């Protein structure tokens, strides 16, 4: 159970990216986060694993307050939270398999990382994850030789290596075409269904939200403006979320 309580983030320039946001995510839920660009979706997701330090508020995960965790505890928390990015964020010059293995860094003793060594089990596991996302044959290619869709699958494999209890997906399909978008979303759905991993996924397209999400939260200018089921988003709610001039497409 993830509980967000009065979460606020004010950036150094004074921009209020999150304004007193509170909601709960039960274990195993597929939650979509929607809102305009700049509404605070990315900030929200990054506050949860503290890539961005929240200014105020609490994030309770199974009772433990993430915002109060020490660096050492944070390492243990982060390794249970996988993250998938809009721009994939792979290390381009490294091999695909190395990128996937990097998901294990929270578990591996840092002294062994100096020697660039991973345990044998992890290497086997990495190949299994690549197989799961369907690109086992690309394991020894350089990451930047892959197409966008393939790169995102590597990103998912990397997140899976962490044995995550939760996956934060920051617009995972915004850089992909509709066909690829569905294939990536299906992978996330599969992880959510079979492994029981909670997924927090920010999305732009409402049809994807309807198709995949169990629940939706919507942000507008850092404020939580909607929380409920995807089908509850009617025209009025839509205008609340995206502004009065917005029109529904697709």
């Amino acid at each position, binding site marked *: 159970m993830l509980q967000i309580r009065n979460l606020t983030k004010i950036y150094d320039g004074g921009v209020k990216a999150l304004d007193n946001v509170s909601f709960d995510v039960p274990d195993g839920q597929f939650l979509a986060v929607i809102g305009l660009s700049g509404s605070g979706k990315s900030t929200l997701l990054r506050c949860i*694993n503290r*890539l961005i330090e929240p200014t105020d508020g609490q994030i309770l995960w199974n009772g433990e307050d993430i915002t109060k965790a*020490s*660096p*050492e505890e*944070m*390492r*243990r*928390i*982060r*390794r249970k*939270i*996988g*993250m998938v*990015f809009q*721009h*994939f*964020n*792979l*290390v*381009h*010059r*490294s091999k695909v398999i*190395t990128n996937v293995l*990097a*998901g*294990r*860094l*929270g*578990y*591996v*003793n*840092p*002294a*062994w*990382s*100096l020697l*660039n*060594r*991973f*345990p044998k*089990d*992890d290497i086997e596991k990495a190949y299994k994850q690549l197989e799961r996302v369907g690109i086992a044959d690309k394991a020894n290619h350089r990451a930047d030789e892959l197409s966008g869709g393939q790169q995102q699958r590597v*990103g998912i494999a*990397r997140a899976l*290596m*962490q044995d995550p209890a939760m996956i*934060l997906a920051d617009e995972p399909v915004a850089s992909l075409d509709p066909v690829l978008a569905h294939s990536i979303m299906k992978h996330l759905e599969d992880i959510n269904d079979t492994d029981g991993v909670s997924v927090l996924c920010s999305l732009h397209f409402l049809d994807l939200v309807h198709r995949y999400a169990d629940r939706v939260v919507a942000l507008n200018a850092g404020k939580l403006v909607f929380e409920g089921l995807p089908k509850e988003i009617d025209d009025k709610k839509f205008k609340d979320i995206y502004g009065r001039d917005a029109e529904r497409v697709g």
Partner: protein
Amino acid sequence: MKNNKKASPWKSLQIGLATLLGLVVFAYGFQITQVNLEELRSEKRQESLVRVTRALAQPEIFEYDQTEEIVNQPFYVTCPSSGSETNIPEPDTSAPYLVITPACANPGDIVQVEGFNFAPYTTGPVRFVPGSDPTNIVSLGRDTAETDGNGHFVVSMEIPDRPSDDVQYIRATLKKNVGAPHLTQTAYDTWDKIVETVFLALLATVFGTMLAIPLSFMAARNLMKTVKSPLTSIALSTLGWPIGIVIGFIVVRWVGGLSSGLGSNIWINLASIVITPVVVIFGLRWALPQEETALPGRALQITRLGVILLEVLIGFFGLFQLAALTMSIGKSLETSLGSFGFLGYFLFQVGDIITILTPALGALAAGGTLSNFMGRIGQLASEKLPMATTKILNIVLSAAAGATVLGLIGQLVEWLYQIGNPLYVLWAPVTVGAIAGLLLAVFTKAKESLPIGLVIYSITRTLLNTMRSVEALVMAIVFVIAVGIGPFAGVMALGLHTIVSLAKLYSEQVESIMAGPLEAIEATGANRLQTIIYAVIPQIVPPYISYTMYRWDINVRMSTIIGFVGGGGIGFLLQQNINLLNYRAASAQMIAIAVVVSIMDYISSVMRERVV
């Protein structure tokens, strides 16, 4: 439009004034730099210029072995009384011979010297030899003979003012090149020194690069910005450095004593360098499990720490033993290997370097470890202890840390300037440091994370920029004093300059990497070290290689002149020859420099293309 018209005269005036100002600046520049072409036109300058240019155009690289044909023809100055001309024997016409007409003359007369049967197309001086001894090395005159295809020449020479009743001689010395051209001594010397130059640059670049890499991370804003620690942790880790360095140095020296106490018995050395790595590897494997899902208990953690410490000590013992072994092997190889003795010399020097560096390495390692360890304790303390206790702890520790740092700086000042007054170099800095630390602790919140990373970043940057502005040539002067004249001083100077300038260039590359992968690796729970290894290093490999190549280029060029101040390399030879006015030799060295620099340029561009 209106505005434009109005501004126009003012604008013209401005341009006029700017032009005038420019002219004045250049006029003053001419005065200052003493531009003077009259000097260039003077005959003396022209003559030396031509002489030097010609010498430079004929580098002393190849020469021929020469044979000389010397013929001394008896000759009288002045003509003896009649009847004694028979003293001149008939020349042997089967060998080279000279015919002088007339056979005797008065001083100042012009005589014609004709040579026959010499080797064709040879040249050499024709001289008047005073005194009655044909082997006299003293000779007068400046005529040169040049034989034709038949070995014949004709020279008119003026008889010098050396009248004598005895017979004197006119000597023709014709020199002939024999065999194939071969390299001159200058060429050999140049080769020796150019090899020295190239290796000087190589060593400086390698050592410089190795040290510049860690420094560059400390000078990269994007990496250091996120390093934040509570004051308790900062103060404790600051205190950890000096304490750790002292402890480490003492302990490792003790280990070194233990090692040298065993003597330089090769079998003991050999046994220990086989056993120690095995012990260390197994010990560390046990103490540092690759992966752990559960948090280990206190007792286990402490045991592990103990084992790691023990392993490190054993490791240092092994290093000392390795040094002793390489030194003794090196010594024996140096004599037995003959022309490959340099391998033995290398081994011996490596052993020596290990012996000297190991205590320093141990001191640094202990300093870093203790600092890290105490920092963690500080972190833990500031997390767990109540606010008021933390505040008090902060005040005490921060004052102690400030006092220690400034006290050490005071001692450095004392060592440099020998002030000799403990009030200025010990008590005053300690007090100031303590007060500064105290104020810092009082005016910051007890558990607030302070941007210590940015502080380290600023200090590193400032140091790098200051050191970088000191030219390598100036550093070489200092090192020549420290380690003596020779290429080693050059290596040190170039190496130091390489460290500071590469660290700056590298750090700019680190600052320009993509932030995405960094974020992704951090999100997996990787710590700082892992983030650097898996997200930063892969991204900076190409620019690092490219900059290292570029630096290697610069170092080769620098090492050609570092000899001017005694730093070894070809510059030493070049300067010597210029000072001795031996321009032909200097020319050979200049050509060598040009060739080496352009070859390096080519190689580095090829390698850059390959790798990047």
